[in-house]
């Protein structure tokens, strides 16, 4: 064996400069921003790239914003009856009269009764040009049921008419009724989903966190609720709402029924997620420190899958809107004077009326659009919900 040469001892050395973890590769500012972004921000960045979802989101925001100022947007009041224009067809907006530009206007209508099938026939009268007014005074209303006003963004010429989507059997402007109907139809989804969200989180949380007999009880309950086909059950329950109730009470009754029957799917999702998450170390740590169960669930476990909950809520809202529409369509849901899109469609139940006056089914359009938009948005959110993938 060779003897190793004696080595000189190095002096102890500590650098005074601050430690830079990125000595080897410095991240660009963009990478920096990405690494430090919160998960919500990441979700937003990913969602932003989904064009259709963003467009749907904007559309829905606009729709929901419109219900704050329905009175201003609708050219007519919800209950204004135009006795001279029953089942009037949609009036087209023109810009040129005899080759001359005079801004947006509609032609007045002449009314004759077809004596053969008693069909009401309206023909546009090109001699009567009725310019559309903007930012004008029209039908008086009580804003939000309180403040009196008569300001509209758009109204017909004074003494003239403007039925852009036609009128119904009482001569009420369908466009205005759709604008007002959005108030009920769109909020039903939101109120209903908050009820079902609360129930889903509470019961799913209890079942998933405690397990044991609580879990079995909740599971059995869910199973039983699920064995009823939804719509017949909804029909039975809304038929049980007393006819003497105030329409406003009926509104809350219906949303309560929709919410109470819808939480089962959400509760199942919450339960299975909680079952997995409560085995994690951070949950155990929180338990050992002595945090209360409600704090552990709400503070430590729930945020882990909140994004998934948001997605399922977005996808559940349209089914509530549709359910309300279906019930009102059958005459078991909202009752006049509360007007929802389903109530409007109720008039289209008579196929003979629809055959003569097809514009009665225009109310379908906003329903389909809103449901589509919620689906697209939910789809985009689902892709974005897992930004680390």
């Amino acid at each position, binding site marked *: 064996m060779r003897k190793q040469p004696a080595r000189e001892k190095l002096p102890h050395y500590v650098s005074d400069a601050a430690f830079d973890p990125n000595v080897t590769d410095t991240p660009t500012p963009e990478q920096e921003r990405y690494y430090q972004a919160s998960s919500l921000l990441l979700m937003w960045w990913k969602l932003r790239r989904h064009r259709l979802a963003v467009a749907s989101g904007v559309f829905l925001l606009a729709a929901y914003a419109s219900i704050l100022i329905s009175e201003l947007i609708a050219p007519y009041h919800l209950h204004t009856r135009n006795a001279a224009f029953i089942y009037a067809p949609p009036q087209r907006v023109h810009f040129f009269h005899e080759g001359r530009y005079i801004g947006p206007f509609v032609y007045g209508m002449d009314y004759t009764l077809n004596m053969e099938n008693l069909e009401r026939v309206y023909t546009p009268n090109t001699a009567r040009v009725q310019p559309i007014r903007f930012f004008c005074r029209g039908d008086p209303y009580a804003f939000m049921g309180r403040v009196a006003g008569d300001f509209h963004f758009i109204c017909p010429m004074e003494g003239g008419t403007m039925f852009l989507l036609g009128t119904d059997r009482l001569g009420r402007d369908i466009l205005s009724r759709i604008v007002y109907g959005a108030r009920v139809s769109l909020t039903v989804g939101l109120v209903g989903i908050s009820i079902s969200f609360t129930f889903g989180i509470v019961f799913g949380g209890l079942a998933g966190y405690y397990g044991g007999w609580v879990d079995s009880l909740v599971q059995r309950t869910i199973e039983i609720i699920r*064995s009823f086909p939804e719509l017949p059950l909804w029909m039975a329950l809304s038929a049980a709402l007393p006819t003497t109730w105030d329409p406003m009470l009926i509104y809350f009754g219906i949303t309560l029924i929709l919410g109470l029957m819808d939480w089962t799917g959400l509760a199942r999702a919450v339960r299975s997620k909680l079952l997995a998450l409560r085995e994690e170390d951070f949950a155990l740590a929180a338990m050992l420190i002595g945090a209360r169960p409600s704090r552990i669930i709400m503070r430590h476990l729930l945020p882990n899958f909140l994004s998934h909950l948001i997605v399922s809520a977005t996808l559940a809202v349209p089914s509530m809107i549709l359910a309300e529409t279906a019930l009102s369509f059958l005459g078991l849901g909202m009752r006049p004077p509360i007007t929802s899109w389903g109530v409007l469609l109720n008039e289209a139940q008579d196929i003979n009326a629809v055959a003569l006056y097809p514009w009665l089914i225009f109310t379908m359009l906003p329903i389909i659009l809103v449901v589509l938009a919620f*689906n697209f948005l939910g789809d985009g959110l689902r892709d974005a919900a897992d930004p680390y993938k």
Partner: protein
Amino acid sequence: MVRYTVQRLIIMIPNLLVISLLTFIIIQLPPGDYLTTYVLELQAQGEHVNQERIDYLREEFGFDRPFHEQYLSWLAGLLQGDFGHSFEYDLPVSEVIGDRVFLSFVVSFSTILFTWIVSFPIGVYSATHQYSAGDHSLTFLGFIGLATPNFLLALILLYLSNLAFGTSIGGLMDPRYVEAPWSWAKVNSVLAHLWVPVIVIGTSNTASMIRRLRANLLDELGKQYVVTAQSKGLHPLKVLVKYPLRMALNPFIADIGTLLPQVISGSAIVSVVLSLPTTGPMLLRALQSQDMYLAGSFLMFLALLTVLGVLLSDLALAALDPRIRLAGGVAR
């Protein structure tokens, strides 16, 4: 497997009992009973009300007895096949609903068949041709199908047929067969009318089934065993059919449980729009007029159909995938 089946069957009994109790509570919920509605209607028409007869009827129907007695006698009747008395038709419920229950079953069953037959090839095509023009347009169509509520679709179809043929496509058979006893001609007529409700009710479920099958198959296709099979030079068709497709087929069976209640819900409202002689319109009418035993029988029948559907799908899944029954699938 036998053990699992027996377990599942035993679980069903308390479930059905609770369902029957809930059903009874629901049909009892509206204030008053059929007779109060009836009396009010008579009074509204200005007719004389014979109080003695009303009292007699009330006792006869047992409206004056306490809740639990009414429930128990109804339940006992159900078990013996006696569904109670329909006040409106003044007939035993079983006579009133007879054909309707059968036709409801026919419509639901054909709808599920339609859903499977249509969604299977489209789902497979969409997954194997991901992001192709065909996939994109089918996905878009699927979205529209999902977003259009089925009763609106029914209305649109009714309107279009009215426009094109001047006739109604409503109903489930030619008017002349409605009262006729069952014959081959009547069956044919039913078959000829069946496609409209089947398409209307089935569209949204078909769309969602396509999406699920597509997603499942895509997941499977991305797995390594598929790459292995491809790199070994297996015929593409065989690579697809032998394993991934089998795995992706699970939703078809697992979903009977959710599909059936949806189909039944859908048919309830569509049959009102298309005026089909199924349970839907009669249930609606019974609910409105508080014909409680009739409504109760319908609810009970629909729930029973759902429970049986879930049972069937669970058994089929357990037969296909032993992991499910070994993991004590009853509790989950």
